[in-house]
């Protein structure tokens, strides 16, 4: 494993705003060069007002982590205005608007299933269980785009150890809150609600698997999964369940929501794998938000050195 040097600059300041705005101008300008004739029409009213970032509370005492990448961090505005969060909306810019008033306190997380003692923990108790770390991870969506996010949290195994699972616990299941009153997307039936995801026990215990409650040095914004979520950087983004209210330990492999929705397209494992295409599109390349050209997708999203041994002897084509 590579130990990367720590930086003293707060991550939210790494990419200056004007720099990425210029990049946008270049990008969009290039893309539309062929139809520049139409620019004569000044249609100011058609430009939607840009949404300002929600400034959250700063989290104190965040430690740097050797797991962080030194790749350029995706701007905060992109990560907070381009979300797949179907509980709010299937439009990428929908969650930022619709999650504004989402209540993240009080918040309880139920711990049950194959555990010594079932319990219900307050989210603020969980957050204080271990030292908060900044983990700058690559995040690859199954749709073929990626971002680099400075998450804040600690290894999921810190929670699992304290949950005292029994020897029968082979998997962990995570359930997102079901609250159609607050989550307009749940009033429709695009997916089976509530959203459920799962990991094999050894995956969940892996130090890279993150229990996350912040990003960019601040509390997690609502549209990014507040108050508490998981981040599994070597798997497609949908494995990283948001707004978790239940952690259940099971003997049998949990059924995850996307697998129920389209079993031939989304498996349980869903490890990032450039060699196994989604049935409808290639997974060989990805577009990093902010970049013009596509870049090759890396096996296990570049975390192969750390996690490949979890899957020795497994046919990853079958267990996609």
């Amino acid at each position, binding site marked *: 494993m590579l130990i990367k040097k720590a930086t003293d600059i707060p991550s939210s300041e790494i990419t200056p705003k004007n720099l990425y*705005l210029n990049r946008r101008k270049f990008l969009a300008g290039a893309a539309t060069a062929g139809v520049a004739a139409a620019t004569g029409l000044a249609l100011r009213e058609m430009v939607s007002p840009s949404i300002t970032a929600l400034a959250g509370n700063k989290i104190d005492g965040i430690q740097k982590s050797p797991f962080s990448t030194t790749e350029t961090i995706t701007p905060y505005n992109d990560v907070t205005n381009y979300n797949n969060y179907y509980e709010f909306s*299937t439009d990428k810019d929908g969650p930022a608007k619709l999650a504004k008033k989402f209540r993240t306190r009080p918040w309880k997380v139920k711990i049950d299933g194959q555990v010594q003692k079932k319990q219900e923990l307050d989210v603020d108790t969980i957050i204080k269980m271990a030292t908060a770390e900044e983990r700058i991870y690559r995040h690859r969506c199954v749709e073929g785009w990626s971002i680099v996010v400075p998450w804040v949290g600690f290894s999921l195994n810190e929670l699992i150890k304290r949950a005292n699972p029994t020897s029968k616990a082979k998997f962990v299941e995570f359930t997102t809150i079901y609250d159609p009153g607050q989550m307009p997307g749940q009033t429709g039936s695009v997916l089976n609600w509530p959203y459920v995801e799962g990991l094999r026990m050894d995956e969940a215990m892996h130090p890279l698997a993150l229990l996350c409650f912040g990003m960019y040095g601040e509390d997690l914004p609502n549209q990014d999964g507040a108050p508490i979520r998981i981040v599994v950087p070597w798997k497609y983004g949908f494995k990283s369940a948001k707004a978790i209210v239940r952690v259940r330990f099971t003997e049998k492999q949990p059924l995850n929501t996307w697998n129920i929705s389209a079993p031939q397209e989304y498996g349980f494992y869903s490890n990032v794998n450039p060699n196994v295409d989604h049935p*409808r599109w290639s997974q060989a390349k990805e577009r990093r938000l902010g970049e013009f050209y596509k870049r090759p997708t890396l096996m296990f999203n570049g975390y192969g050195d750390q996690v490949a041994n979890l899957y020795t002897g497994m046919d990853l084509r079958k267990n996609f």
Partner: protein
Amino acid sequence: MPRWLKPVIFLACLAPVASLVWKGLHAGLGANPIEKITHSTGDCTLTFLLITLSVSPLRKLTRQYWLISLRRMFGLFAFFYGTLHLTTYVWLDKFFDVHEMLVDIAKRRFITAGMTAFVLMIPLALTSTKWSIRKLGGKRWQALHRLIYFSGAAGVIHYIWLVKADLKKPLEYASVLGVLILYRVIAGIASRGPQAPKASTSEGLRKVAQD
């Protein structure tokens, strides 16, 4: 039709692309501008295809027979936005990698459908001139231009096959297309039926002149 109307509609049809350019120059295309351009030009293609198909029913229902003179323009705008949509794929998604595109067309059914929809529009755009109508003869020209139904259907299927879970938008297009096709089927049956009143001679002549 007032003289100024057609140029005004022409400019209005350019509004979507103008808006894209404007937003592009003012950082208004969001975190993934290329995706936004792709989706927006795709939506415009389907919208203009459906507008084109609405002209003749609308003309008959409202008896505003001059509407027909707008149909070619709408059809060509469908082709225009389709070309932009295809360009975003060829350029910004595949970066002119011919091999990768051929694999895509063969392997990915939503690409196959989309490509079919586009290819079917090409002969329609090429024969959109008055000269072509004369050269082909009205009947043959009309038969050829029925391809628009297949292009529209392929376009809608392309959309249905590409979405992950939320079928709402593609199904909206599909239902509009369905209604427009159904209208023609019913109108066709009605005009062939024994009870259907024959079109008066003057009406028939006008129809020929304007179609």
